[in-house]
């Protein structure tokens, strides 16, 4: 099921209260907030109202808040051997193949 990924890029400060209402209805509370809504004409109509303020992409799956956070987190550059035995085996396997 496709979703619209909507990110608020520009604030609605100083714009009509209806614009604020649309943002509230979509669940956009502050700048750079991202929400996912299923592709439908009612959501598209809401986006048309605030198209100057947001960034919209069509994506296949919605991400939860935790998933978005995990996607932003950089690679720590290490792994704990005891905890991540699987990762280690994979890496060794890859290196073994390379050699």
């Amino acid at each position: 099921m496709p979703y619209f990924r909507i990110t608020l890029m520009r604030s609605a400060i100083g714009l009509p209260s209806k614009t604020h209402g649309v943002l509230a209805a979509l669940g956009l509370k502050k700048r750079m907030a991202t929400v996912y809504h299923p592709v439908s004409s009612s959501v598209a109509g809401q986006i048309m109202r605030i198209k100057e303020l947001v960034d919209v992409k069509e994506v296949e799956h919605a991400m939860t808040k935790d998933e978005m956070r995990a996607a932003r987190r950089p690679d720590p550059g290490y792994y704990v051997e005891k905890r991540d035995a699987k990762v280690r085996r994979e890496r060794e396997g890859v290196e073994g193949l390379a050699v």
Partner: protein
Amino acid sequence: MFGPFRLTNPLSGGLLWKIPWRLSRHQKYRHRERLRRVDGIVATLDTALARQGESMKRVERWKLEMPTEGEMLPKDKYTVFDRKVKRYRKGIHKLPKWTRVSQRLNPPGF
């Protein structure tokens, strides 16, 4: 001499907050980028709805009536009709909230 409390005309009191009469080329460039961004969003909505087998009156109407950034004349891109101004045109940066509103069409003949 420098810093936030320097003695310039706008800062030494009174109502002197001048907006230049025309846009700089960098303002124009950013304005074109914003126009193109809105065009992209409308295209995204259109393709996403078409894939679902839906269509929307508001999107259809926008596509029919509104010129895209490439189709707009420079005159309409950077200036806007105003009946109070000599020769009926003023810079689009005089429009309140001009970076966050869509102003693409002007009265025919002006």
